[in-house]
């Protein structure tokens, strides 16, 4: 039976809205790898999510994903703490396409504005959001599970696929 995408329209808008993003995987010894990401794109059918990772920062993560390791990604808006996590069995590491560059260009100013609201704007935000090594790789995956992670009693709850 075909099922709908894990991301509903609201969460798809949220993960692409200039939130703070981090990605994790693990190696064969189950030691986790972890790095930040610079923006997110969701395909029209909401089944594919693409993130952008600096190879200079995320060497271990990209190696783990290229070796077929599973992926977890967390998205959080600093000013509201709204947070969700997506999980996938695997991911594809690739080069940037033109549509990716547009997403990346819009990402930093959006997150900078939110960091400013929580008192971490200015020089901090500028340095924090400068792309390490000035190069990014794309990490594309099909999320199979989504979890609410906003702090509180509902943290950790699985987000059901929209009907």
């Amino acid at each position, binding site marked *: 039976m075909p099922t709908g995408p894990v991301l509903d329209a609201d969460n798809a808008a949220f993960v692409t809205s200039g939130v703070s993003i981090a990605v*994790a995987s693990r190696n064969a010894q189950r030691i986790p790898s*972890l790095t930040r990401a610079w923006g997110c794109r969701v395909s029209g059918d909401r089944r594919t999510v693409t993130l952008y990772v600096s190879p200079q*920062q995320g060497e271990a993560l990209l190696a783990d994903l290229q070796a077929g390791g*599973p992926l*977890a990604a*967390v998205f959080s808006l600093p000013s509201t703490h709204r947070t969700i*996590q997506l999980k996938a069995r695997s991911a594809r590491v690739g080069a940037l396409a033109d549509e990716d560059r547009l997403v990346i260009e819009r990402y930093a100013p959006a997150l900078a504005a939110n960091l400013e609201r929580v008192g971490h704007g200015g020089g901090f935000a500028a340095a924090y959001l400068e792309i390490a090594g000035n190069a990014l790789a794309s990490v594309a995956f099909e999320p199979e599970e989504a979890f609410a992670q906003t702090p509180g009693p509902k943290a950790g709850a699985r987000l059901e696929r929209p009907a």
Partner: protein
Amino acid sequence: MSGLSLDALRDCLEGAIPALVATCSADGTPNVSYVSQVHYVDGEHVALSFQFFNKTRHNVLENPHATLLVANPATAALYRFAVEYLRTETGGPLFEGMKAKLAGIASHTGMAGVFHLKGADVYRVRSIERVAGSVCHAPLPHRNLLAAVRRAGPALASARDLGALFEQALDALERDFGVRHAMILIADESGESLYTVASRGYPQSGIGSEIRCGDGVIGVAARERAAIRINHSTAEYCYGRALRESASQSGDDVLPTEIPFPGLAAPGSQLAVPIVHGARLAGVLFVEDPEAGRFNYDDEDALAALAAQLAAGIQLLQGAETDEDGGSAKDTALTPRGRALVIRRYAANDSVFLDDDYLIKGVAGAIFWKLVGDHVREGRSEFTNRELRLDPAIRLPALSENLEARLILLERRLAERGGDVRIEKTGRGRFRLLVRRPLELAEVPAAH
């Protein structure tokens, strides 16, 4: 561990920028989550706040390996820690220190009532890696705390008595540490409360005010023998409420015997460091500031060093007052005149009032009652610390080291109550009662 030391990265562990933690289940599924607090434990360990039963916790119980990503809030420099879960603590100094700090973080981020510490998850730090990326220029620190500690040392060592020691410590805090609001509290014999003996930077000195063990940052620091530091104002550790409640509980027929706690109404930062000698709690050194984030790990260490010197000084100087020396035996120069000052003592709790003004209670009240009694009955003005120690009416516990601190408390309270009756030191282990008005004593026996 690699070339980077955890000690040098403590600014990343203040909770200003939420850290990230990645874990992996036994079946190999990774998980990534924000963590409110990564707390510095020592040069090789950190502790993460465990607030909710979540996947992170589930995973580390199955597979202890985790990876942390932390940022320096001033420079934006990123660091990656490879860590290994060891254990969870649900009480004690580490837990209480994290609980207090988390309360501040919660109130600052609008999460009061949501953030609640269930445990301190302790991890061993296996390696630290600097993550490539830009950094911004961090402002220079306002002061060098090592230099401050060094300057304070000789100043404290020069004190010849306990009162001078307290003043030297407060002077050093102001001059060398840039601390504008500070107080020193001494633990009473019961170990259940602390009383203020010296303060700096408040409209009212608050000398004689009491804090129960376990109340607020000072009380928790005393109970746990641990430094407690909060970087944002939080209702949970506020003194205003606790004091109002205890005031409203005192009965109608009892005169108020609370000296208001002098602390700031809205402190942005608070730090309490225990003054410990061996296994014994001597007191608490407390500093605060209206500004949030005023004190960091380095301030905590610097104040702990100052508190250690205070502890040694208290021990040394209390012993020194057991013997007498010098002490001019000349008669008191004052001749009492004017209307009689009524000194009323309530035997129930040794509380003493000058006319209708509350002076002091407890051991200090009993000391004062003996002094004025001897003065009125026998015309005595000269006293020694030794005779107070031996006087059964004062009910000092055996081997009490607190007599000198009580005398300082009494001396300062008397000075603040207008000075019609004062005490002053006349030599080591000796002091004099100075009386400007005739005294009239009235005793209110304890009800049976």
